[in-house]
């Protein structure tokens, strides 16, 4: 893919082809790479990379400004995702702008609030233990296949009110959709998911329950039932949003845990501090980015940007802003609590953030309770694949 031409208003000294997401340097150690941007680049620069062409923000403050200024930065058309021209649905709520956006959020926010997700805690703990049961005695596993993939998929099915026996099929679809190198394979998975979800929506219309899918179907926008297209776009997006993100986060964390026995022991020794521990690990291992398009001209830190420019906050780099988190790469469970950017911020803050935190917290608790000591399979070096969600593809562990 050729790079887009750099517009005339971008001063040459601000152009940095950093190779985000795709260069061998990035893929060798993505988090170290993103932390080092604070030394290598000015706080706002224009990146010419194929996947990240446009302005890049790496300061904690600047990312929050972008995320919180919906009057300047829009999400419309921000998600590169294949769509059938005959059914040009919006991915919701991510592609809606305020004030309409809030109404979509109100449909599920109560269910996904800290109180709302407590009813899932027991199920998640059981699902996590079922998965550990299958590998504990073997003394080894492919962590990504045994835990990282199936856990968030099972939880998605449970949340939506879909049958658990679809788990392996959904895992396969998710892998094909988000990781296949052959676009035909990804396309087939996409159609299979859409077809299944359409059928499931029909079924829930006839037999409503208290799951998320029924809530979306019964959701009201401006006092009117949500359109069929919006119901579909909401459901599809929940599937996409909560799988690879959790998968990559778990893989990053377990890769680190496998190599840091002292920290593992510290986590086990401090059960009461699990919330702070979880938050620090989420800061250290952020996996994704927030992209927007400028609606109006704006100047930030003396840099003039124009309407139509793409702007992307490199969220993991913002979590490594040394002005906010000194010694940013070190994992310190006693850090002063400050807002992290792993789940973004502003109106589009991750809707599944509480659920994600709960999944990861339970994963840490149950795994470390049952398999406290483990390491990487000898000879293994982690490989990261280019993509919008950063984590090792495979993770063989032994204990």
């Amino acid at each position, binding site marked *: 893919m050729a790079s887009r031409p750099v517009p005339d208003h971008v001063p040459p000294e601000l152009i940095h082809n950093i190779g985000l997401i795709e260069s061998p340097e990035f893929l060798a150690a993505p988090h170290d790479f993103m932390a080092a941007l604070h030394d290598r680049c000015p706080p706002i620069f224009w990146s010419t990379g194929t996947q990240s062409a446009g302005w890049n923000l790496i300061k904690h403050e600047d990312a929050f400004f972008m995320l*919180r200024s919906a009057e300047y930065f829009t999400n419309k058309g921000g998600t590169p995702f294949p769509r059938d021209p005959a059914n040009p649905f919006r991915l919701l709520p991510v592609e809606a702008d305020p004030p309409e956006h809030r109404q979509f959020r109100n449909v599920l926010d109560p269910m*996904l609030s800290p*109180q709302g997700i407590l009813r899932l805690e027991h199920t998640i703990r059981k699902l996590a233990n079922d998965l550990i049961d299958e590998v504990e005695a073997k003394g080894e596993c492919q962590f990504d296949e045994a835990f990282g993939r199936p856990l968030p998929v099972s939880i998605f099915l449970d949340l939506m009110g879909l049958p658990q026996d679809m788990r392996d099929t959904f895992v396969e679809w998710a892998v094909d959709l988000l990781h296949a190198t052959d676009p035909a394979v990804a396309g087939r998975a996409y159609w299979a998911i859409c077809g299944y979800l359409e059928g499931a929506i029909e079924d829930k219309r006839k037999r409503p329950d208290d799951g998320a899918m029924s809530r979306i179907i019964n959701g009201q926008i401006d006092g009117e039932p949500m359109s069929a297209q919006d119901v579909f776009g909401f459901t599809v997006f929940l599937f996409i949003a909560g799988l690879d993100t959790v998968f990559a986060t778990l893989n990053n964390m377990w890769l680190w845990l496998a190599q840091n026995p002292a920290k593992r022991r510290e986590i086990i020794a401090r059960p009461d501090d699990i919330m*702070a521990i979880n938050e620090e690990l989420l800061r250290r291992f952020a996996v994704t980015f927030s992209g927007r398009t400028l609606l109006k001209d704006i100047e930030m830190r003396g840099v003039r940007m124009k309407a139509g420019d793409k702007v992307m906050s490199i969220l993991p780099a913002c979590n490594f802003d040394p002005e906010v988190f000194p010694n940013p790469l070190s994992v310190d469970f006693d850090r*002063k*609590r*400050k807002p992290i950017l792993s789940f973004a*911020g502003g*109106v589009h803050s991750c809707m599944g*953030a509480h659920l994600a935190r709960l999944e990861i917290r339970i994963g840490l608790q149950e795994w470390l309770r049952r398999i406290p000591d483990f390491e990487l399979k000898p000879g293994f070096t982690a490989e990261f694949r280019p993509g919008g969600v950063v984590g090792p593809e495979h993770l063989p562990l032994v204990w």
Partner: protein
Amino acid sequence: MPHITYVAHDGASQTLDITAGENVMHGALYNGVEGIVGECGGALACATCHCYIDAAWVDKVGGPASDAERDMLGSAGAEVKPESRLACQIVVSDALDGLVVHMPDRQF
């Protein structure tokens, strides 16, 4: 249901019935009260639900519920005062029926 009064920075106030067990941040958000943003949804991860407890209620409500709340208040956008709290950390109960909270001039 307990009544909670939200006083905007310009002095305009709204009194609402909030279910016991809900928190003061959600009480504002679900009822369209402006002035409390609550963007992390109560994860103690954003400091955009900052409010000042009315002088008459400070003793009853008390100070920050945890070190994490105290830390996070440090990231609030507006001036932090002794009566500052994060609204998502205040659980509505019958004991707080009549609570008055004042909203700061900005949340970030």
